[in-house]
């Protein structure tokens, strides 16, 4: 063996164990690190950039009946909010939306729980989802009319339709991806049926469920706005969708965009206040998602 390839023999040494003095083993993060981590600043800058882009594009197009500028939209938004018209509409829409969303989430939970525990439930979920998920809400309108009549129940029906399937799909995929060992650990402690679902499957599949909830939320809005405009409004007592539709018909495009901007704002608010918080205190804290 050549000398070069043989690692050198060094002398041994020993260090007496000594207590740590000069560092805290655990120290809280500094203030600004926290702020930067939350990223309000970064997202705020991004939003400002997008607003600028919008303003520029709209000025360049110079066709404010089709694309009003950011500032015009904000003015219309401000007037709408100040006059109390928009808040009223938002409240109406929100009420229906939350009911539909809650019902959709509950139904998705029932369906996926069935699917995870029985074979026929699984077939049912897979079949129903692939059948009904591609159906547009307008297709359900006659049925809704027939079964629920006019008004909020029909709206809730179509919202459930748009929340249920994507959420069920995602939740079910999440359930199926739960590591076998975790599932076994739960069953080992005597958990089964609903308790297994609630105490093991749901938390373990939470990343998938949360993105299902986000998608469901977004599609509930989309559907609500489209549906309110088709048959949601009785005598002007409509929600945000109705507000948008009416102003669009009357070519008050700035108000249309104000309505849409409100949808965007609510979307941002819910994303950051609700979903981000859920993620932060759950999956991120648990190390299940970066």
């Amino acid at each position, binding site marked *: 063996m050549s000398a070069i390839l043989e690692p050198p023999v060094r002398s041994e040494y020993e260090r007496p164990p000594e207590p740590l003095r000069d560092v805290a083993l655990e120290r809280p993060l500094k203030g600004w690190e926290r702020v930067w981590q939350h990223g309000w600043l970064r997202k705020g800058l991004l939003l400002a950039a997008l607003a600028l882009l919008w303003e520029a594009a709209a000025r360049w197009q110079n066709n404010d009946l089709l694309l009003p500028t950011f500032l015009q939209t904000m003015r219309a938004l401000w007037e709408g909010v100040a006059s109390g018209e928009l808040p009223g509409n938002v409240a109406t829409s929100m009420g229906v939306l939350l009911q539909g969303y809650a019902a959709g989430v509950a139904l998705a939970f029932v369906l996926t729980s069935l699917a995870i525990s029985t074979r026929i439930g699984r077939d049912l979920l897979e079949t129903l989802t692939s059948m009904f998920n591609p159906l547009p809400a307008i297709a359900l309108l006659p049925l809704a009319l027939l079964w629920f009549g006019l008004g909020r129940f029909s709206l809730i029906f179509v919202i459930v339709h748009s929340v249920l399937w994507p959420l069920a799909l995602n939740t079910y995929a999440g359930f199926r991806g739960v590591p076998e060992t975790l599932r*076994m650990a739960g069953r*080992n*402690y005597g958990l089964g049926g609903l308790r297994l679902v609630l105490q093991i499957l749901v938390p*373990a599949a939470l990343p998938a469920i949360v993105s299902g909830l986000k998608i469901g939320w977004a599609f509930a809005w989309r559907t609500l706005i489209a549906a309110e405009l088709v048959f949601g409004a009785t005598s002007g007592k409509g929600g945000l969708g109705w507000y948008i539709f009416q102003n669009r018909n009357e070519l008050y495009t700035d108000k249309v965009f104000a309505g849409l901007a409100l949808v965007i704002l609510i979307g941002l608010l819910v994303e950051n206040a609700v979903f981000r918080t859920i993620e932060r205190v759950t999956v991120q*804290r*648990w190390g*299940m998602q970066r």
Partner: protein
Amino acid sequence: MNTRKPQSLQVVGSHAGLPEPLLQVQDVSLEYRSAARTVRATHRVSFDVHRGDRFVLLGPSGCGKSSLLKAAAGFIAPVEGRIALNGETVSGPGPDRVVVFQEFDQLPPWKTVRENVMFPLLASRRLGRRDAEARALHWLEKVGLAPFADAYPHTLSGGMKQRVAIARALAMQPEVLLMDEPFAALDALTRRKMQEELQLLWEELRFTLLFVTHSIEEALVVGNRILLLSPHPGQVRAELNSHQFNLHSAGSDAFQRATQRIHGMLFDEAAAAPAVQALHRSAAS
């Protein structure tokens, strides 16, 4: 210290005069099915575990130890044969047989270390929240993780995760404890401490232990009876006594001889020659 010589070998064990075993495994074959093929993990394995036994499954990697343990826990149904607990066929898992799995991901990541240890106590409705918490802290202390009671599993090292799983199982004080290589990820001292704790708990509660290990020494030290399995697919190679050894017998001649003998039985003598020689030498030195 107990160092009497192993009894002479018989080709088949006799049941004459023995009490009814707690866990009976009779001609059990286990298989894994996938869409395209079926893999046999163990072939017609039989053994009896009596109340109070510290029964060890020992065999080379991939011989079906974990599969047998999971079958006894009720997670895998045999394709052949029968597994009975207290005379009744095992039909599913339950909190009467607490399992420590081999995998590191057996801790729900959404529960802190403390909550993880409390979890089975609460889930099986064995204790109330306060008692469960006290019991959890007691056992976390024993495995040296009390300072990490509020940490989440993903912030622990491999060995620490495994210790949480051990604490969780011991805290349950089950009648039957199934452990799958629980100490593999632990350093010598921690491992020894764990073995001692297990021993102490057994002496106190006299539960029945089914213990999987790949270490001959650990098998001899922890168990009172050892089932040797042949390589994949696992078949019974021998069943031996080891009640004569305990945590302090590690260096004794009898211990060394038993080690060699098991080594010879487990691994084809010819192939294993150098390793066995090395052991011979170390025993003789």
